[in-house]
């Protein structure tokens, strides 16, 4: 049955409350090819990309969250997205790249500067005061549960660039997102800047986040003993347990 009128519910930046509903249950439907979602409304794909670009350029601490389908080069589809992904990153001044490398629970210890985890994504958002973020390459189930938790407790504008059908629970989403659309998103970022949108962090590049990225940039040997790492100033206060590995059964 075709939806005859728009649902009243809007998918807005939070904090929405203790337990917001799933947007799909509130009548928000997924976009078709060529369409996108902005705050729960179906729009043209280009409009959704524009909304996402403006949010990433103008809100505080914009962050890209690449998931396992983006960061691990396990097939051609993933590998061909790597370059346009960095093209996008370079168009967002002051952007951080914090991976969701997998979905293994790392509770109760997490380095929120190094990773985001679907069991408690809000910790990473809160710690880094992130007000705009992009999820890309995250399996749909984990993207959706993450997006709902972020909407519940943070004021972060969430964007889901999805290789499959898209995400109702994000403030902006575009489905069937491939390398070509990533390139188009980089072009959209360039266009909105050209049209007068002034980036909040103009002049800045990618901001390294987490001990591994910082170590990589400073040339420190991350295999050195912990004491030397602290001396070298490349280890954050959260890194100590992550580095050694976690007791996954610890309560």
């Amino acid at each position, binding site marked *: 049955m075709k939806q005859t009128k728009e649902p009243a519910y809007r998918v807005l930046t939070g904090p929405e409350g203790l337990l917001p509903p799933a947007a799909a249950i509130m009548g928000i439907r997924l976009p078709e090819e060529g369409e996108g979602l902005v705050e729960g409304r179906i729009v043209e794909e280009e409009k959704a990309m524009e909304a996402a670009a403006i949010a990433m350029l103008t809100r505080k601490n914009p962050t890209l969250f690449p998931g396992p389908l983006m960061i691990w080069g396990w097939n051609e589809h993933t590998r061909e997205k790597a370059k346009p992904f960095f093209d996008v990153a370079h168009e967002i001044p002051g952007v951080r790249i914090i991976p969701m490398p997998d979905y293994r629970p790392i*509770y109760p210890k997490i380095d929120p500067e190094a990773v985001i985890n679907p069991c408690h994504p809000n910790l990473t958002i809160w710690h880094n005061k992130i007000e705009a973020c992009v999820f890309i390459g995250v399996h749909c189930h984990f993207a959706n549960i993450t997006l709902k938790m972020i909407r519940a407790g943070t004021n972060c504008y969430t964007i889901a660039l999805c290789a499959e059908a898209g995400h109702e629970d994000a403030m902006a989403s575009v489905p069937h997102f491939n390398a070509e659309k990533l390139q188009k998103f980089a072009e959209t970022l360039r266009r909105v800047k050209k049209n007068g949108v002034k980036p909040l962090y103009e002049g800045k590049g990618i901001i390294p986040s987490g001990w591994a990225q910082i170590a990589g940039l400073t040339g420190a040997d991350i295999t050195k003993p912990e004491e030397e790492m602290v001396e070298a100033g490349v280890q954050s206060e959260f890194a100590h347990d992550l580095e050694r590995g976690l007791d996954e059964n610890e309560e």
Partner: protein
Amino acid sequence: MSEGVEEEVKTNPQGDVITAAPKAPKEEAKKGAAAQRVVDPDYLFLQAPREKTFITGSEAAKEAIRRANVDVAISYPITPQSETMQQVGYLYAEGYLKDYYRGEEEYGVMSAIAGASRSGVRCLSATAGPGLMRGLEVISSWPGGRLPCVLLIMCRVINAPLAIQPDNVELSYMLNTGCLLFHAENQQDFYDYALQAFMIGEKPEVTLPVAVAVDGFFVTHARGWVSLPAADIKLPPRDCYHEAVPMMDNENPPIRISRDAPIQKSNFISYQMHASWQQEIWAAQDRSRKWIDRWFGGLIEVVNPKAKIMIVASGSAVSQSREAVRQAAEQGVEVGLVKIKSLRPFPTRELIEATDHAEKILVPEFNYVGWLAKEVKSTIGRNERVISGPRVFGGMSMPTELILEYIFGSKQY
């Protein structure tokens, strides 16, 4: 054998002669499976030319499985499901399935299906009544594991005094598991829903198990006309790399949940994660509406949409209601009918719109508890219009006269 000695004839308890079991087909028999070609689901469901054939519900299910490109079927026999899975066994022997076996009992069967689905292959099981009850704990865990598979349910009595006769009270237990749940009216539906269920459940935005129910015996063991496309076409194989969770990944949830229950700690973070996870299951159900609309032609079918008296039914109660509608028309009274094809997701908006004008709404059912009437009452406004009945149970059939009594409010029928 010497002359004058009679050959022993084996019979079953009803006195029917037991014929020899069919021999395993030779390689020749597997040619049909080998010659099948993959086609687009839209073509198979909606466009391929069809021919009518007069077959039982069990045979209709067999024809669906023949075209479904199923990898593995696992089940445990129980009446009235056994015949269907026996038919599926023939398909295995003919090369249409890669694996097929009988589990130890239903708990084990449903667990094995979970494992098979997690490995990324297309899975089928079937059960009935008490078998469903036995497997229910595991079945309830399938949606949270985001495990696409198809479970055929041939409804029968579950409660004491035990009987094998038709009664669909078991579907009330399935309503809240998170599985998609379709209720077939007849043999044609059983073929179509069972085949389409695979593709709906495997859509990336859905990634859920699908149960396709039918009323035992009335449909499984009775013949009806079924339009079938050619047997040389089949669905594309399951593509588990385009689903909502990673399959074949023992380090990550949801598979890892079985290992160390990682998100079940006693704190708010864990509660919130679990809550969001549950919400996502029901959201995924909602996303299946698009595909049900596309392939079923809607979650409901409406007959005589302007009638002041409407019947709302699912399963074989729909067939009885169709006849009651016809008989009422002979008496000069127009009665409408809403056939509910999908119980989960429930056609909330559709039902509200289809019954908004009605003055009286009957809900005939084949169970004592009236689970469909409760669903209808909790969905529509002004629910004092809903008459919860007529209902029969324990194996009884539903005479159309019984429905007419409810329509006309008299015993003359």
